[in-house]
């Protein structure tokens, strides 16, 4: 994108992991003709860039530009110039005098007494809070009788550590801001939510909402990294307001990798089971390494416990979750929002427990899973609902048959260089964060629909589509309800000024929740069409019927059995116009009454080379219960992509830090951040995806989500397959060749 008279922005970033800026001299940059922006020149507002939860659950510790950077890469200043190159030169001409402070790079170290405090004070709503031991927020929950766990026949307790992953979405974070003559701004940015972007910019810059127009643009992948408003957006707005010229600001890949990452988590999990194959209870301590700022870590603490207790029935559960500051890049949601992490831990321990009590791991899962009729905590303790559709049993039993599960290898019988193993794992994710009562999470959307004068429709929604097929599904839902073909429903380009509020495309809510709004609005329009048709046909509106007529390429409303009493949508729209009845149009907001889990299960076969430690994929069978499958090809595509991300989470990805200077060990180079290529994935014939036959009564035409459930169980499944091959369990991700070789040396000498 570009505009006439446009400037290019660049962000000045802290080279230190923790420092105080004593002085900043921008005269060199200004002498070169650049527009500069310093911390004093932006509003002194402390905010949280993610606005999905209500204010009383939102901790705030961010500034547009800070004079006390808390990680390498934090924005401390900015420039705008006529070209990117000139902007870079101007940036290099800025002189900064730092007082370097102590820093910490590990969540457990950070909590120790005597560790350098990262934030002294933060806000919860408007209340100033003191931060103690670098714990940004915490959550504790206990349910049931602790005696259940005490009476268990077998108890296992272990510590697990996940990796630090980078979204590596193909499009780096970017924004274009144009100041408008009326004092407002227009914004085009990488975002999963145009309305929350507008809300935040209003909060920071005080511009009246109607004068902030945030436009929907195609997004080159995101996976949760733009649920929050990306820092570039807030900086670019400051530059545009000061320069009064359009400003474009795009991060380089090296900047982007220091801009966001997934939460690294440390878990201490204790699970107990009885000899009869039932779980007794558990205790989970979760330490979330949130990096230097909170991007709504508090609701994540709720989700982590929610994901944990909604996998299997635990008569007793005890949870402590802490979000811990470190001097690293702030962590944000990454496809699954903590679910892939906790699912890896639980699915690993379920296998281990099954072994200890002597039941097959698959049967152990079937004995204990949470399914239809059970209470589901989905998005945390404040979002409870009852499960109304569940394909877990079908997924596990059909998959087991396909892979001949009960005849899988025995690790103790394997000796050669190459060893094979099968693993099973299951999981789920919520479809939206809906619930029958309000919770601390905002989850509703809206849509507008109108019938055009030729009998086609225009559909307008604020919901973003970042490649998950969401818009496509909406069109199908609207078309189905109105008995027209999908190409008769147009998607209209939209912005905050032309749409009603939608919270965000996240939480696998695009089809279930957003699609719910699409269906509601289609039903309203249909009602109006029936009214109009009733008048024209002299029939009762509730008695007329609708069908699609292929020859006329029109939907036709008719009074059944009475010849000649029929009228096409086009004729209805024309008549309504000529008789001044108005347009058949509607605008609706919609909140889903629950957040039904879409269930997934994987069977994976791997081969481990015990000489090199390399793990190769041999076969994958994936089953998914997503209710009615609206578009099988796109839904399968979500499973393929989810599997690939889960696979690389298990064996490839990590972002270690250099404690000497607080920067990434790879210095921001994606050449040193491993993600799968075409060569790492399996051949087409070795991958099978099937869908369970279920119907979700609360979903549009019975549908649920799929995006995140496709990923969540993968790490646990692959880890279990590696265990089945080698007889060794791993408690740290990723399971790299070096870790495998070390573990084998320990086991076999």
């Amino acid at each position: 994108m570009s505009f006439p008279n446009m400037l290019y922005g660049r962000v000045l970033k802290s080279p230190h992991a923790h420092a105080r800026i004593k002085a900043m001299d921008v005269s060199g940059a200004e002498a070169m003709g650049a527009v500069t922006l310093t911390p004093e020149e932006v509003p002194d507002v402390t905010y949280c860039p993610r606005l999905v939860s209500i204010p009383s659950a939102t901790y705030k510790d961010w500034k547009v530009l800070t004079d006390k950077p808390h990680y390498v890469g934090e924005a401390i200043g900015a420039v705008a110039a006529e070209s990117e190159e000139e902007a870079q030169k101007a940036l290099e001409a800025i002189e900064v005098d730092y007082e370097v402070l102590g820093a910490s790079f590990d969540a457990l170290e950070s909590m120790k007494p005597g560790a350098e405090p990262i934030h002294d004070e933060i806000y919860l709503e408007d209340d100033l809070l003191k931060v103690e031991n670098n714990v940004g927020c915490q959550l504790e929950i206990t349910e049931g009788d602790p005696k259940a766990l005490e009476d268990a026949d077998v108890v296992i307790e272990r510590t697990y550590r996940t990796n630090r992953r980078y979204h590596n979405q193909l499009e780096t974070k970017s924004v274009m801001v144009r100041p408008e003559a009326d004092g407002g701004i227009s914004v085009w940015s990488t975002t999963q939510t145009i309305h929350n972007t507008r809300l935040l910019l209003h909060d920071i810059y005080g511009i009246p909402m109607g004068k902030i127009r945030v436009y929907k643009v195609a997004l080159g992948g995101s996976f949760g990294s733009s649920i929050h408003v990306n820092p570039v957006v807030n900086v670019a707005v400051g530059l545009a307001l000061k320069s009064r010229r359009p400003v474009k600001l795009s991060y380089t890949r090296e900047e982007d990798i220091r801009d966001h990452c997934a939460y690294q988590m440390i878990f201490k999990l204790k699970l107990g089971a009885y000899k009869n194959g039932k779980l007794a209870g558990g205790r989970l301590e979760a330490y979330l390494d949130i990096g230097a700022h909170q991007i709504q870590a508090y609701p994540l603490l709720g989700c982590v416990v929610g994901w944990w207790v909604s996998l299997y029935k635990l008569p007793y559960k005890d949870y402590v979750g802490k979000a811990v500051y470190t001097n690293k890049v702030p962590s944000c949601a990454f496809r699954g929002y903590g679910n892939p992490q906790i699912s890896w831990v639980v699915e690993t321990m379920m296998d281990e427990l099954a072994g200890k009590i002597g039941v097959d791991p698959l049967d152990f899962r079937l004995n204990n899973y949470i399914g239809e009729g059970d209470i589901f905590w989905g998005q945390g303790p404040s979002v409870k609902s009852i499960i109304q559709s569940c394909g877990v049993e079908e997924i596990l039993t059909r998959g087991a048959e396909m892979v001949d599960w009960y005849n899988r290898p025995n690790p103790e019988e394997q000796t050669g260089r190459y060893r094979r193993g099968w693993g099973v794992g299951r999981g789920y994710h919520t479809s939206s964060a809906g619930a029958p009562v309000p919770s601390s999470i905002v989850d509703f959307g809206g849509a507008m629909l109108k019938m055009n004068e030729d009998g086609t429709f225009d559909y307008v929604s604020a919901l973003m589509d970042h490649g998950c097929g969401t818009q496509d599904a909406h069109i199908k839902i609207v078309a189905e309800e109105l008995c027209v073909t999908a190409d008769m429903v147009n998607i209209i380009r939209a912005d905050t000024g032309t749409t009603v509020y939608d919270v965000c495309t996240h939480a696998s809510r695009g089809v279930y929740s957003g699609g719910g709004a699409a269906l509601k609005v289609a039903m309203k329009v249909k009602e109006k069409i029936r009214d109009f048709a009733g008048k024209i046909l002299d029939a009762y509106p509730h008695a007329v019927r609708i069908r699609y007529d292929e020859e006329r390429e029109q939907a036709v409303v008719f009074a059944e059995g009475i010849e000649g009493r029929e009228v096409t949508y086009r004729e209805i729209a024309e008549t309504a116009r000529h008789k001044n009845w108005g347009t058949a149009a509607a605008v609706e907001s919609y909140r889903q009454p629950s957040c039904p889990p879409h269930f997934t299960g994987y069977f994976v076969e791997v081969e481990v080379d015990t000489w090199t430690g390399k793990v190769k994929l041999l076969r994958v069978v994936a089953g998914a219960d997503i209710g009615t499958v609206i578009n099988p090809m796109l839904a399968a595509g979500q499973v393929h992509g989810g599997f690939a991300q889960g696979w690389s989470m298990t064996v490839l990805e990590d972002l270690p830090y250099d404690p000497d200077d607080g920067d990434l060990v790879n210095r921001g180079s994606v050449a040193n951040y491993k993600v799968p290529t075409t060569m790492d994935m399996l051949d087409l014939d070795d991958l099978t995806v099937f869908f369970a036959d279920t119907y979700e009564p609360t979903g549009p035409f019975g549908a649920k989500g799929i995006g995140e459930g496709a990923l969540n169980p993968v790490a646990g499944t692959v880890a279990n397959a590696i265990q089945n091959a080698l007889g060794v369990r791993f408690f740290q991700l990723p399971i790299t060749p070096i870790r495998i070789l070390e573990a084998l040396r320990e086991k076999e000498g």
Partner: protein
Amino acid sequence: MEIEITINGRKRRFDVEPNKLLLNLVRDELYLTGTKYGCGIGECGACTVHLDGEAVLACMVLAVDADGRSVTTIEGVADGDKLDPVQEAYIEEGAIQCGFCTPGFIMSTKALLKENSDPSEGEIREYLKGNYCRCTGYVNIIKAVQSAAKKMQG
């Protein structure tokens, strides 16, 4: 430096700095923004274009090195409003999710099919290993290449 490049069939002249990348010329001066920046270091393949019919990474080619040669970008692939068979195949097979990697993949696929009109799955994977996709897990992309190969054989 004065250079002349034939871009998508049209001769154009430019005056560029010697360190200007072909990627930046194509995007910032010609507004052919279908060619994407993903990494700038030759890792992702999002910037793939054809230089005299061969697939190259536009972030690794200097504009001056394209002097006197012909460059095809994704914008030059379709015949007016009629999509190329490779483009059609990517759409039909659901090989596009966010779509950011797609132009690069299509340019690589076209180069592959020019060299080898009936590639095996292994050959497809080998040829496309420099193109990175975070969304699809490559499954539908491989299917799209197979289907494009069939279409082009008629």
